[in-house]
């Protein structure tokens, strides 16, 4: 049996502590140990993208990182996006306006990916958006509205 490793991780600006066995996946730690269930698990082999979160602002697959590796890291998850209990982040707002979600299971993966893209590139081309979003799968929407939401969010964020 392997012993637990004590870890400290900052998520959405808050510090969390835990003790994990080495094999515990980061997605499971975030969800079940910390109660942040907004990050979803869809494949556990790095393809579907619904587990995408940000580590130091970069989008990563949380199903492919062990929680113990994220010790000392600064992560962002979907729960940290909305600006308040009543106001959504502009990216989230764009999603609801363009009907860019149906079942919502993939949505956090897209939101995180877009947040990363738009924070380093405020005027992404359609190709750049498509390239970035091709790493998250959706089975409900057919993507049109997600791309529309991305363009809408980009234009709004860049005029702020």
């Amino acid at each position, binding site marked *: 049996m392997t012993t637990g490793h004590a870890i400290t991780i900052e998520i959405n600006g808050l510090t969390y502590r835990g003790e994990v066995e080495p094999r515990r996946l980061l997605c499971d730690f975030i*969800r079940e140990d910390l109660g942040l269930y907004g990050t979803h698990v869809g494949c556990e082999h790095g*393809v*579907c993208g619904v587990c995408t979160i940000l580590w130091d602002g970069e989008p990563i697959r949380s199903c492919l990182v062990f929680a113990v590796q994220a010790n000392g890291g600064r992560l962002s998850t979907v729960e940290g996006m909305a600006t308040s209990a009543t106001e959504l982040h502009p990216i989230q707002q764009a*999603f*609801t306006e363009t009907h860019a*979600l149906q079942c*919502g299971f993939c949505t956090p993966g897209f939101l995180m990916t877009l947040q990363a893209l738009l924070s380093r590139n405020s005027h992404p081309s359609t190709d750049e958006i498509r*390239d970035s979003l091709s790493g998250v799968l959706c089975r*409900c929407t*057919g993507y049109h509205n997600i791309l529309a939401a991305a363009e809408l969010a980009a234009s709004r964020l860049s005029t702020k």
Partner: protein
Amino acid sequence: MAMIGTSVRRVEDNRRLRGIARYVADIERPGMLHAAIFRSQHAHARLIRVDVARARAMPGVVAVITFEDIKTVKPIPMRLEPSEDLYRALQRPLANDRLRYVGEPIAVVVADTRYLAEDALEVIDIEIEELEVHVDARSAIKPGAEPIHPGVARNIAHRFVVETGNVEHALADADALLEEEFYIQRHSAVPLETRGLVAEYDEGRKLLTVWGPTKVVHFNHGVLASLLDMPPSGIRMIEVEVGGGFGVRGEFYPEDYLIPFLARMLRRPVRWIEDRNEHLKAANHSREQWHRLRVGYSQDGRIVAFDDHLLNVMGGYIRTHGATLPTMTAAYMPGPYKLDNYRCDAHCVLVNKTPAGTYRGPGRFGASFVRERALDIIARRLRMDPAEIRLRNFIPSELMPYTTGTSAFDTPTVYDSGDYAKQLKQALEKFEYDKHKHWCSEQRRAGRAVGIGIGCFVEKTGGGPWEYARVEIDLSGEIIVYSGAADVGQGIETVLSQIVADTLPTDIESIRVVHGDTAVVPFGVGSFGSRSTVVAGNAALRAAQDVKDQLLALAATALQADIGDLGFENNHIVVRGRIGSAISYAELAALTEPSSARALGVKPGISAEAIFHVDRMVFPYGVHLALVEVDQKTGFIKIPKYLIAFDVGRAVNPMLVKGQIVGGFAQGLGGALLEEFAYDSSGQLLSGSFMDYLLPSCAEVPEVEVLLTEDAPSPLNPLGVKGAGEGGTVAVGATLANAVCDAFDGLVNIRQLPLTPELVLGAAHEARKARAELR
């Protein structure tokens, strides 16, 4: 503002965007244990011994069960099209003495964590004796083939024939005959969320609660009660947030018995979340069919006879859908065409693969492929425009309602309304068909492989037998809608809110929609077959109208006015022409508090129930048009132009309808180009991960134009609505295949899906050879 017909934003979005919507994997119960399922790695074998002793001794393992622990349980019953002879091949929740597909559950481990449960799976031992494996339906039905179920000769679990007119005579009399074979590959829904359940048994109150059911919650509730031998009132099923259904999620599977059984046995909550590897081999497969077609036609392009010999490839067992898949194909193969002599000789064939069930447009994706390809082949032979041959064979709108002569779910197929010719013409015009046809022709002469494909179809939606709704205004004035529908992500909460708010004006965000909870919603059929807007929507409408009448009567008394002078504003009833005379829903509700109600002589509370019965389905219809270019050196396809025309009768929320069309299109595209459950000859699933089962990403889904019309509302329900869930999917395979063939001037004949680059490159070679021979 009229609520119906407006593209309002969805009420479901906020929680899903914030990441606070609770899916079944997000449910935690105190003391909860985790289950993992030991599944067969053999496609067909005698199961001689299962040894779980080592597994039981693993750290953190609380229990391991095998068939021995559930041996008296009955097989999982069928929900739809339960033909008598299919009972021979039903599935029990754990394998007994035979393994019939890779993925079949053999044992369940329950442990403190999923990690520990999976460790225990690795030390379960079994002893088997391999049997002959059938992966190809055509060899499974050969005389002498090893039967997968005792007594099911030639592995044909069920056979039926649908016939209208006299096909043999008509074939014999026809000017010409097309004989062709087609194959549609095995693929399925593959939602992004895998299946899952949490079950908890309160021993003191003898109440078993199950989170995670969806789609047909009330039906499953009854099944579970029966299988567990418990009174239905002792079980509560609660639907939580669902990550897509598309037909495969929500049917009663082995796990739907096993997990509640374990919770009751262990007196501790048990959670099971399917992983992706399991999902690809355990959740229903679909679509796989072999067709042998004979079509008789006249020299002027009329289809005079249509004969289909169908092998519908099932799996190692028959599941809840019974004979639904071939029934759908047989009933809806005629599509929008007048086929007076039609026959479908349909077979449910067992093979050693994952059992099959419905998936978006079940039986109709394949039917469209076969039928629309046949029309194009015939058009080519007659040098007719593919649009022309369709116009020539459409059922004229004057003949609506039109009885096709087929039937499904014990009801004859009667198209309620539709103007197929008008729609095709509209679609062709929007697509600029003539211009692009001309352009493609020129480009082909210059050596490019560009072509246009058409796919026409009629969809079936709004199936019965009924749906339940209750609309209530509580003491705070809030409107609550209880519905027997289920939310699989499609936006039913928003649609029901719109329908109710249209009658009872209020801010739709304040309406609470309750569904999928058997303790709170007494009756329900569920959400499948694009029925919810039609049936649940009309039930909600009726209940809302009843509530409206109650409000008006109360307001008339309270405001001392005639009902005829009353009007609605958001959350209020006002007296027209009398300023300041108004009463809120909350105040009206307060009047019906029991003591006050007694004094007023009215019933307590403001609420109404309604059950909307349907005897007939309603039939939206559509056209897909595609312009494709084939890279003749690699076989890769580009789709620069794609149009979907769809008549939905009436769109409650056009934005949501379009979302269904485009989403459905993406799945159809996956089925047409990318997705396949491939098996090797020993019955091993080769596409057992997302590296090999290829779902389209946004880079693979082209732009699609949607032409949504409301030309043919249904006369069969007050809202005039038809369902929109499947029209984006069913014709994609047909349309793209037709377009690729057109890109090669009809010199190739595509007869199977998916259109892999290799298949298409082969077609390019064939075309080149044919051109050389023509010279």
